[in-house]
């Protein structure tokens, strides 16, 4: 059925998607605004800050002056008091008619000279000592070099040079201009194009990008990870050693960081609450408010201790595989090595498949993961691993056929993993994962 402009597109599940046209118009307006803001900002920064400095260094004429007075001006701001040195000077300039014009001005640098009313904060310094030190360099009734504006001799300075921080100020409008400009080009390129047309353009650009995607592998098997990181490490027993999903060291570091930061903050508030109780002025609101935060802190501490035990007590787990990537129906061998000094209740290896979906909920991006396939490859119960003598085993397994291959897109993913799960007496249960890639059994040559 033919349709014209809609405020809303079709409803997807429980979510209603917005109008594409309206969305793109909003996008265009947003980036145009950013671009305009950046452009105006650049002009303002350039005209107000850069050009005056450049003129002082290039166009102002050198002259001499007599210092009449010095002082440090103070200015009250919301952030506190700021200061600037001001030097009162007298200088004579001969006019074209051979007359001497006498000028008296309070000045120091170009920011001060152009801001005689002391309105702009950028002509001030944060420290009084710094401003006073500058003012002290000038002595009354002594002669100093100065530079005046030939176009307006009333504008005079005692200090030349470029302030480095001015170039940093440029970064603010420049970033607005860059983001706005880039977004504007993107929005204009996609304006009036259907979602399929935009996707086709993006895909062509990706294929042209020799460094993007997975090169030939990506074209042979679009949206299947090429698994180059998996085959980069040769095994000692079988062809490839699989990289571990999250190493125990990183997991330990992560939990340590979370535990330290969380408990560090909670302890400060807890100290305030406890000291209130000790002083006989208990703050019950703060005390009650802190209880759930303390509970989370204790939980993180337990998690941290558990990770220490796993990382230090349970030795490394190595998994090697006879071939990679895997194919549905393919027969493979798997080698497992588990080190440590453990009385194992059970040690199991499984092949699992997980679906992962990322979706936006308000401003948050949430990811939900669901296991959809599990096949036990190996299990052994009630045995001991001795120190220096790792437990080693090899097993054969077949990938089921037909089965969904690995898949990765921006928001949706299908992941295959070899999972090693162990339970040892006196230790927390551990689970280590090793990613593998499954490709479709059938393949045809890549085409453009």
């Amino acid at each position, binding site marked *: *059925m033919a*349709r014209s402009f809609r405020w809303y597109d079709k409803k997807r599940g429980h979510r209603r998607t917005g109008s594409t046209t309206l969305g793109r118009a909003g996008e265009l307006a947003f980036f145009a605004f950013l671009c305009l803001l950046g452009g105006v900002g650049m002009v303002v920064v350039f005209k107000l800050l850069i050009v005056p400095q450049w003129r002082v260094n290039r166009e102002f004429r050198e002259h001499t002056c007599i210092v009449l007075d010095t002082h440090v001006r103070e200015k009250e701001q919301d952030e506190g008091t700021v200061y600037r040195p001001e030097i009162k000077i007298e200088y004579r300039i001969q006019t074209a008619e051979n007359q001497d014009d006498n000028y008296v001005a309070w000045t120091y640098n170009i920011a001060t000279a152009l801001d005689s009313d002391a309105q702009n904060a950028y002509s001030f310094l944060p420290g009084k000592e710094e401003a006073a030190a500058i003012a002290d360099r000038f002595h009354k009734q002594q002669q100093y070099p100065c530079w005046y504006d030939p176009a307006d001799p009333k504008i005079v300075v005692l200090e030349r040079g470029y302030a480095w921080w001015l170039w940093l100020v440029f970064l603010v409008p420049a970033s607005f201009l860059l983001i706005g400009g880039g977004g504007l080009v993107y929005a204009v390129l996609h304006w009036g194009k259907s979602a399929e047309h935009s996707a086709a353009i993006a895909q062509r650009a990706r294929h042209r990008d020799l460094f993007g995607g997975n090169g030939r592998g990506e074209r042979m098997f679009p949206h299947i990870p090429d698994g180059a990181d998996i085959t980069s490490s040769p095994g000692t027993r079988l062809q490839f050693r699989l990289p571990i999903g999250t190493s125990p060291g990183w997991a330990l570091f992560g939990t340590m960081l979370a535990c330290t930061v969380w408990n560090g903050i909670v302890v400060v508030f807890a100290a305030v609450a406890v000291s209130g109780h000790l002083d006989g002025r208990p703050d019950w609101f703060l005390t009650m408010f802190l209880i759930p935060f303390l509970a989370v802190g204790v939980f993180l501490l337990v998690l941290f201790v558990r990770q220490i035990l796993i990382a230090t007590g349970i030795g490394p787990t190595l998994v090697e595989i006879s071939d990679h990537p895997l194919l549905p129906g393919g027969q493979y061998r798997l080698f497992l090595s588990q080190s440590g000094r453990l009385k194992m209740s059970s040690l199991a290896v499984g092949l699992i498949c997980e679906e992962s979906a990322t979706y936006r909920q308000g401003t948050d991006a949430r990811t939900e993961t669901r296991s959809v396939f599990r096949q036990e490859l190996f299990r052994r119960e009630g045995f001991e691993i001795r120190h220096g003598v790792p437990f080693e085993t090899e097993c054969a397994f077949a990938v089921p056929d037909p089965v*969904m*291959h690995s898949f990765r897109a921006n928001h949706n993913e*299908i992941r295959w993993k070899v999972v090693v799960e162990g339970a040892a007496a006196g230790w927390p249960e551990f689970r280590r994962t090793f990613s593998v890639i499954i490709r479709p059994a059938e393949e045809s040559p890549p085409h453009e």
Partner: protein
Amino acid sequence: MSEPAVTIRFDGNGRTYRPGETLAGEYRFESLPAAEVKAVEVSVLWFTEGKGDEDMAVHAFWRLNAEDGTTLDPSQPQHFNTVLPNSPLSYEGLIVKLRWCVRVRAFLHRNKELFGQKTFRLGDVPAVKALP
């Protein structure tokens, strides 16, 4: 007068294809005057459904513009064909579903659009059942 519509038909009435196989078919517009059509886009694409935000990628794309001098006669069936890729295969998961389709979009005057799509299966991956 009946509403304009798009009809898409696959050759051999095939609904399931294998990677590397040629997908061929035709589309036709009904009750659509030729003067109304500014452009027609035909895409062979996959998209996801389920819990996550939608992903979509176009495998083959054709655009016919009346402005370029291309004669767009909506009453005549138009053919398309493409060799299907190795992946991704159609998938009916628990929270991720992947569907292939041929989508035809006609851009009409007065900013109107006519849209039609027909799904097909690439590969024979069975639907997933929840683990016990």
